[in-house]
């Protein structure tokens, strides 16, 4: 039962991050998850200074607020003409440094690492259960991550056309009267909620990887957005199941193994994708060369 809960949690995290990651990749903001993982440091320090405790709830609130701030700053800088990667870099280093300064000023004597007070560990998910009215409702992480996943699915599902057009051709979207900025901010809010909830449940590395790798893999396999979304979610589930099996076989970190599997799946797609893969391209080039050779005498 424990392993099932862990695989389910891993699958939910991977699918919800993979799903939103597709949009981030299209907008060239794939490293936003990594940025958020660092930028929330001042959030937990301020939450600690206010509450005086390192309990999960105040830490989570602090992280969520600063997570939202991060994505809003990134979006604001980006739409004012700063390149997206630079906007991400500037925002997260600025916020992270504020956190480091705050720790050194006010919290020298208290252990306030993100690793220690916020990031969860997927191995402990089965025991961190949610009790409601005396009933054991199963792991808290499943509810938290499942909840934000449902919200993302609902929002993106309702406005799929708008999100699609905003990602591929914002100018066109604006021309047909879609409030592009609103949808950008909406997407960024979903990303922030999903990452912070996932950090708290399973730790940073899995989330950062799942925002990038499944989407990037799906991008190699298809040219259609809705297919890409489904493939990325499927890849997320595969990573979780095979990653857990790998971790169990090696007795290693579970999040680490799931991330490693995602890397392997990407490599396979990179090599063997029917249209964009290295092998397929090599074959296609060879065919062109052979054709050229055959048609050469005729051209003389």
């Amino acid at each position: 039962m424990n392993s099932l809960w862990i695989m389910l949690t891993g699958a939910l995290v991977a699918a919800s991050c993979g799903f939103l990651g597709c949009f981030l990749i299209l907008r060239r903001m794939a490293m936003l998850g990594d940025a958020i993982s660092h930028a929330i440091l001042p959030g937990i320090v301020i939450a600690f200074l206010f509450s005086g405790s390192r309990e999960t709830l105040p830490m989570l609130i602090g992280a969520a607020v600063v997570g939202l701030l991060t994505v809003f700053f990134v979006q604001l800088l980006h739409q004012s003409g700063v390149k997206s990667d630079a906007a991400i870099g500037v925002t997260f280093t600025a916020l992270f440094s504020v956190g480091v300064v705050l720790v050194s000023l006010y919290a020298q004597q208290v252990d306030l690492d993100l690793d220690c007070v916020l990031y969860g560990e997927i191995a402990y998910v089965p025991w961190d259960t949610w009790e409601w009215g005396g009933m054991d409702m199963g792991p808290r992480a499943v509810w938290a991550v499942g909840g934000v996943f449902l919200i993302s699915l609902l929002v993106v599902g309702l406005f799929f056309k708008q999100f699609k057009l905003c990602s591929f051709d914002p100018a066109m979207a604006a021309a047909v009267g879609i409030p592009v900025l609103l949808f950008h901010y909406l997407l960024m809010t979903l990303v922030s909620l999903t990452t912070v909830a996932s950090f708290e449940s399973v730790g940073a590395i899995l989330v950062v990887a799942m925002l990038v790798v499944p989407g990037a893999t799906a991008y190699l396999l298809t040219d259609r957005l809705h297919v890409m979304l489904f493939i990325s979610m499927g890849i997320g589930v595969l990573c979780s199941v095979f990653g857990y099996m790998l971790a169990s076989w090696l007795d290693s970190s579970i999040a680490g193994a799931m991330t490693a599997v995602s890397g392997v799946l990407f490599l396979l797609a990179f090599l063997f994708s029917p249209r964009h893969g290295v092998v397929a391209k090599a074959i296609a080039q060879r065919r062109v060369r052979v054709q050229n050779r055959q048609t050469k005498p005729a051209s003389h």
Partner: protein
Amino acid sequence: MADAYVFRIRNGLFAGMLSLAVLLAGCGAAQTAEAPDGKWKVTATTGMVADIVKQVGGDHVEVTQLMSAGVDPHLYKASEGDIKRIEDADLIFYSGLHLEGKMVEIFEKMSKKKPVKAVTAGLSKEQLLADPAAPENPDPHVWFDVSLWMKAVEQVRDDLSAFDQAHKEVYAANAEKYLAELKQLDDYARTELASIPKERRVLVTAHDAFQYFGRAYDVEVMGLQGISTAAEYGLKDVQTLVDTLVSRKIKAVFVESSVPKRSIEAVVQGAAAKNHTVTIGGELFSDAMGEPGTPEGSYIGMVKHNVDTIVNALK
């Protein structure tokens, strides 16, 4: 075909009955408080905690340690096998006071369902050190005051006895023997460290894991970082330390087994620039013990190593 089918059903029934019997036997065992193979499975987080349980539990426990030698407990990453090691344990002991980070919250939740005990649970507020700005979050490195760690031994003895009353006397006797050894260790540390002139009795290390040590044995402790291994040290910290080293003629600074050396080396170079020679006095064990099988692989050996290293370098 039909025969095979019947055979399968019969087999299934048999297996079912067998597992039921095993289950009942298991329940019976729990009621008479007797471990199935005569040994309780106890899982401990750090080496220091595992050592207490081994000493007090003796032949009646089989101890599994989650964090191996040299691992920083603040940054420990669980592996897949840990789920089984935690799930299968009859009893779990951890250090507590947030040393194990978020794991402590999980343990607190689990304690409703199975005996999960913090060895530091019995320490009172007066015995703990905390930043006045954050009184609710005491420093977790209590094991370097041997007299406090003796309280942890008593805690383990009481928890084991309450869990397995049949062997109460054995645990009490084991604990008494271990406590006597720790008392000797405490005296040894106190007399050895007192042989360093007070002016030079200053312990300079990379992170503040030695506050309890300093209070117990009257050693001034100066660290570069705060408690958190993530906090960066400031330029001013290095400068102040260098000035103190020079003005008080302190001969050595120390590195720690679970913290990188780099930060403390900056201090050595800073002092050299002011024509004061400071050596690196040796490596101290802070958050984890040495490799199993070596003298430093036990709690007593680790404390002795630290005391001897400090005395040799500063005297």
